[in-house]
């Protein structure tokens, strides 16, 4: 067995969570940090030759289902089946993780985004919602957008 040098912190997974978690303490403190990431060794990055067919259609930038398969069923009575090729759900692999192929728009979080729940439950009309279902806080959307949606519904 190969013994690797001792390190203070090991972070498993270098995606959106792991990389900032590694960067912050490594730039501010003297602790040593190692980030572990799975996936095939991949020299070229996007700008030096990630071809659309191989990397996006054949999904070579995603988790490899021949090694790490998952199964799916819709409820307890269903028979679970393996996900043989990923489709809508695309866990990434390699440095960057799923963030590497994420292609949406993420609006800047405004202060009220963090008060979404508090502001919503203050409105008397939302009392029924509090009783009948849990309110899901979607911080990705500005509170104004969500509030507008709720009032329409």
């Amino acid at each position, binding site marked *: 067995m190969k013994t690797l040098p001792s390190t203070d912190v090991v972070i498993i997974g270098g995606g959106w969570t792991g990389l900032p978690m590694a960067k912050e303490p490594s730039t501010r403190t003297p602790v040593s940090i190692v980030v572990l990431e799975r996936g095939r060794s991949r020299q070229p990055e996007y*700008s*030096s*030759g990630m*071809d*659309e*067919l*191989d990397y996006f*259609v*054949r*999904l*070579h930038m995603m988790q*490899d*289902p*021949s090694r790490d*398969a998952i199964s*799916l069923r819709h409820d307890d009575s269903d028979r679970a*089946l*393996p*996900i*043989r*090729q990923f*489709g809508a759900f695309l866990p990434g692999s390699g440095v960057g993780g799923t963030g590497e192929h994420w292609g949406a728009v993420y609006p800047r979080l405004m202060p009220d985004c963090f008060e979404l729940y508090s502001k919503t439950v203050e409105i008397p009309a939302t009392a029924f919602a509090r009783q009948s279902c849990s309110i899901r806080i979607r911080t990705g959307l500005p509170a104004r957008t969500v509030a507008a949606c709720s009032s329409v519904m």
Partner: protein
Amino acid sequence: MRRRQFLVLSAASIGGVLVYSLDRRVSRVFAQDQSTQKVKIPLRFFTEEEALIVAAAAARVFPTDDSGPGAKEAGVVIFIDRQLAGPWGRDRYRYAQGPFDENAPREFGYQGKATPRETYRGGLKGLKGFDTLSAEEQDKKLREIEDTHLFALLRQNTIEGMFSDPVHGGNVDMVGWQLVGFPGPRMSNYADVDKHFGEAFRPKPITLEQSIRRKVRPSEDEGAGSA
């Protein structure tokens, strides 16, 4: 080891140089001697007989007509041959263990056992002589197999062969990209914005290799020929 098989085509049939103008008028420019020249293309997976059937079938899925070139000019059969010879053809990255369930709901994707190689090789046995039929008879035959997994793959691979980077063997001369006006994988259009501001701009497409000025190794070359 099997005898090496070749597909013999006239150079013209796999693409002269195709020029698309901004108003979408097509003109085909052939070198003088090219139209009679034969090209011998080494096949990696298909036999010559299989390749001719697949070429003919792909040409019905994406026909050549007044709107522009089709699967024949784009060399789709070469693309499919290479894909099958490579890791995709042998399900290198698909979870290919049981339980198999051919009748699973659609959203679970293809749940069968056959690799793409097996699907093509088995399915093409039922299409013997397909390439010698008339276009109408070919369409009739394809309608009969429309619900098979072979047809699903053929349709998917034909579209891929029309529009994926020429490094994979299809989309010869970027005919597919010219057809839809895709300028190729350009890393930035920054320099062109000011130069062509306010006017229609359709640059000649470039390939990924031209764009990054480096060789690109397609995945099908990783496992070419191995079983």
